[in-house]
C-alpha cells in the first residue's frame, strides 16, 4: 500500500512537471506590450521641435478625445512607409489628434522629412536622447500609442502602422 502511495506521488510529480514545461513552452515568450493596455501615461512634458519655449504636457492631451502618439525619425525607413496612413488619419478623421515625437534625430533632417512627406501631426515634440520614449514604454521605432482623453492606453502599435492597423484605429475610435 505504501509503495503505491510512493508511486502515485512520483507519477503525479512527473505529470505536474510535464504540464508546467508544456505550458511554459506553449506560451509566447516574445516580449509584447499587450499587458500595458489599460495603463495610464503621466508625468511628461514634450518640447516642440522648432521652439524650446513651446511645450505640451498631459493636460493638453486630455483635451483631445483620442490621441495617437507616434515616435518617428528621418533615419527610420519603416517610418516612411507608415506616414501615408498617419496623413490619412489626420486628414479624414477629426476625432483623433496625432502627436509626433521625433526620436534621436537631427532637427533639420526631421523637418525635411515632414516637408517631403507631409505633416500629419498637430504637435511635433523632440526626444533627442530618447528618454521620453521610456515614459511611453517604447523600445524601437516606429511605435505608436493610442490613448483616450483619460490618457489610458487603448492600444500600442509596435512597428509601422499598415492598412490593417489603420482600420483598427478607425474602429477603436468610432
Amino acid at each position, binding site marked *: 500500500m505504501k509503495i503505491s502511495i510512493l508511486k502515485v*506521488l512520483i507519477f503525479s510529480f512527473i505529470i505536474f512537471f510535464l504540464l508546467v514545461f508544456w505550458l511554459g513552452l506553449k506560451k509566447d515568450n516574445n516580449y509584447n506590450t499587450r499587458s*500595458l493596455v489599460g495603463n495610464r501615461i503621466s508625468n511628461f512634458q514634450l518640447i516642440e521641435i522648432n521652439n524650446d519655449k513651446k511645450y505640451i504636457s498631459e493636460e493638453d492631451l486630455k483635451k483631445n478625445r483620442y490621441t495617437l502618439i507616434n515616435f518617428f525619425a528621418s533615419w527610420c525607413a519603416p517610418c516612411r512607409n507608415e506616414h501615408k496612413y498617419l496623413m490619412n488619419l489626420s486628414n479624414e478623421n477629426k476625432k483623433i489628434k496625432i502627436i509626433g515625437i521625433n526620436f534621436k534625430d537631427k532637427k533639420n533632417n526631421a523637418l525635411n522629412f515632414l516637408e517631403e512627406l507631409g505633416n500629419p501631426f498637430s504637435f511635433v515634440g523632440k526626444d533627442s536622447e*530618447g528618454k521620453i520614449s521610456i515614459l511611453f514604454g517604447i*523600445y524601437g521605432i516606429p511605435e505608436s500609442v493610442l490613448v483616450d482623453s483619460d490618457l489610458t492606453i487603448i492600444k500600442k502599435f509596435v512597428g509601422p502602422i499598415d492598412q490593417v492597423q489603420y482600420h483598427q484605429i478607425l474602429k477603436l475610435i468610432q
Partner: protein
Amino acid sequence: MKIKIFLFIFYILFSIDAYSFENKNKLLEIYKNLRCLVCQGQSIADSNSDFAVTIKLVVQDQFNEGKTEEEIYKFLTSKYGEWIVYQPTFNVNNFLLWTLPYVVLIFGGFIIFLVVRKTKHNKVN
C-alpha cells in the same frame, strides 16, 4: 602645515573617488538586473544597443535624483511590464516560479523519507 593640507586634499579626493566608485557599482548592479528587450539574452549592462543606452541614461537620472533601486524597477516595470526585470516581484502570475523550488524540496524530502522508512522496514522484516 603643508603635510596637513596635503593629507586633507588627499582625503577629499579619495572620498570623492570612493563615492563615485560605489555609485558606479550600484548602477552596474541595477543594469545587470534589467533585461535588454531588443537583444538576445543580454542584460542592459551587457548591451550597447540604442535601447540599452537609453535605459542606462534614465536609470542614471533616477539614481541621481535619489530614487531607490526598487523605485527604479517599479518605474520600468510600469512602462515595460515584469519582463524587463530579471528578478520579478512576487505576484499571482508568477507565484509558481517562487514557490515551486520549495514545494519540490518538501515533496522530495517526503519521498526520500518514505523510501528510507520502507527500506528500514524491509530490513527489519
